[in-house]
């Protein structure tokens, strides 16, 4: 599904990714771990198309399509979803209108008719229940006044609504208490399927107790330095990252 080859990227003059390779197949969950400053969040930003990152070398394809040439909105329509580490508050933009606009843009791109208000509400209710998202929050302004946990849960709700091929969760576990972490993880587990894939970016092994990955990668200094199964996460928890350098 996703194929990253020899990816180099920089912000201004600073090289952040230095030849990263990663293959993700449909149905898989990959965890990316690594020390602070290794480039984990940068990888997420580059994949989503954040403006200030410049790709200097390498390629990224999604189902064979080069996504590096695409604007962020085109990538989203092709099926890339980034759950933000710090979701943005946008007062005055209602959560539900925002989602309806986004969903219909994606549907149009896929050659589907826009959803009617009724269909949309139906879907919204189903997904709210699936990811245990509070109906009261759905009708508020986008993330405005949400707690840290509510914002993260809103990301998962959006993920459920937009049904991307590839979801990248950028430290979705950070700042969550154990209950919120369970709810978020349950949501993600319900959304896993044969047709989609997840990349979990995380500092802590804790998240991987709830969402069990197929692969664990260690990112260090802009490259993947080690890849293993879920047991690698436990090893990292015990030994830290220094032994890999």
């Amino acid at each position, binding site marked *: 599904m996703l194929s990253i080859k020899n990816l180099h990227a920089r912000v201004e003059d600073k090289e952040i990714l230095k030849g990263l390779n990663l293959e993700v197949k449909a149905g898989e969950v990959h965890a990316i771990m690594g020390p602070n400053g290794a480039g984990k969040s940068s990888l997420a930003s580059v994949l*989503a*198309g*954040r*403006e200030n990152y410049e790709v200097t070398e390498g390629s990224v394809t999604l189902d064979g399509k080069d996504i590096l040439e695409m*604007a*962020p*909105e085109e*990538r*989203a*329509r092709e099926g890339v*979803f*980034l759950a*933000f580490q710090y*979701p*943005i508050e*946008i*007062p*005055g*933009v209602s959560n539900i209108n*925002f*989602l309806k*606009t*986004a*969903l219909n*843009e*994606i549907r149009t*791109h896929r050659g589907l008719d826009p959803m009617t208000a009724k269909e949309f509400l139906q879907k919204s209710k189903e997904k709210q229940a699936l990811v245990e998202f509070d109906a009261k929050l759905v009708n508020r*302004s986008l993330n405005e006044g949400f707690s840290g946990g509510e914002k993260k849960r809103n990301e998962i709700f*959006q993920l459920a609504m*937009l049904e991307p091929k590839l979801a990248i969760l950028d430290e979705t576990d950070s700042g969550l208490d154990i209950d919120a972490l369970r709810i978020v993880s349950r949501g993600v587990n319900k959304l896993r399927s044969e047709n989609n894939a997840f990349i979990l970016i995380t500092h802590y092994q804790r998240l991987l107790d709830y969402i069990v990955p197929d692969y664990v990668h260690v990112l260090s200094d802009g490259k993947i330095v080690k890849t293993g199964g879920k047991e690698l996460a436990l090893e990292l928890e015990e030994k830290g990252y220094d032994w890999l350098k």
Partner: protein
Amino acid sequence: MTTKQLESPLYESLQAQFEIVSLQDQHEATKAYRTQAMETFRALGFPSIKNEEWRFANVLPLVKTTYEVSADKNAQISEETLAHAQSLIAAHKEDILPKLKGEEKGAYRLVTINGVFSKELSFLPDNAGITISTIGEAVDHPGYQEYFGKIVTLENNAFASLNSAMFTDGLFIELKANTVLDMPIHIIKVKLASGNALFQPRNLFIVRKNAQMDVIETYISDADNEAAILINGVSEIALEENAHFFHYDIQKGCKNIRKIQRNEAVQQKHSNYSNYTFTFPGSSFTRNNLTIHLNDEAIESHLYGLYLTAGEQLVDNHTEVHHKKPNGESNQLYKGIIMDKSKAVFNGKIYVYEDAQKTNAFQQSNNVLFSEQATVHAKPQLEIFADDVKCSHGTTIGQLNKEAIFYLKSRGIGEEQAKQLMVKAFAFDVAEKIKIPALRSYVEEMIIEEMKGH
């Protein structure tokens, strides 16, 4: 003349025209008022940009033009003009106010064509509690005698003085005590001219004790018209005890329109004056002066402004709020979206007099610059002479939050639509203050419409 004044041929020709206007006026008191106002205007002259109040609004291009001055107060509208106006109004209603179509639903309609009141095209309330006439017909009305010329400040106001000296048309609306109008009055001002023309409408609105009304003002001109039209308008507004007046001024003119408007209101105890001045792309020059006198205790005043500017347009809002007695509350919220090479000015003054204890006066001006060439000048001024008051002001000038736009885009929403959502959200808290739902949705739709392609 000092350097604060501009030399212009218009100034000279106005002097000459004044004699005609004055001769035509048969009403002694008004005539005396005109003469006095003309003297004030003569002394002031047109302001140059060296005048602090006009620093960012250069009127030189406006007063360099020669205009035909409508000096004939008995002017008739030709059948041709009437038919033309009729078609423009029909289009105006269909186009922008589908839910405010006069007798069909939602609003009364009051039409003026080049300042001349057209009963034929109007749909007026059938209510003994309201008087509607031209300002010229109202001279013997007690309301006119009580308030005309007593509200507007001429001192240091050249344009208001000029209007006071030379107005030939305008409306007089008085709502009697305890009258509550069931629907808003939509005043449509049609400006048609084959050559450059100067219009100086003079209105007087009186809302008596416990009365309440909503007025929506819009104006239309011919989009194909090349002739420069300068509108120098003054409205005097009086609210008596516990009167409520919701006053909407929706400004969306054609490029040939240049507008200088002064609205000045006096308020008595427990009254509420709410002004909504919303300016959209179109008119090349717009200067709004809004001055409110809270002359009694426990008064509420709300000043809501929105300016969405484009092209090379200038929109300048000057407000003055005078808190003179205790327990008053004023609230100013102005929001601007400045696009292309346009320029916006917000200058808001709050005066709290020594007697005006327990005053709450708030002022907020937020601006978004939408292009590199757009400019905004914002200047809040507070002068407080009482010691137990709550006053605040805040001004922001910025750009749309890039991170928020990226967030929206990362969900599949295109750049243009993301910006529209953001602008709509930015304007939301001022648009939501509009109490007429049809007008509110019209304003919101117009924001989206005017944003297209930016």
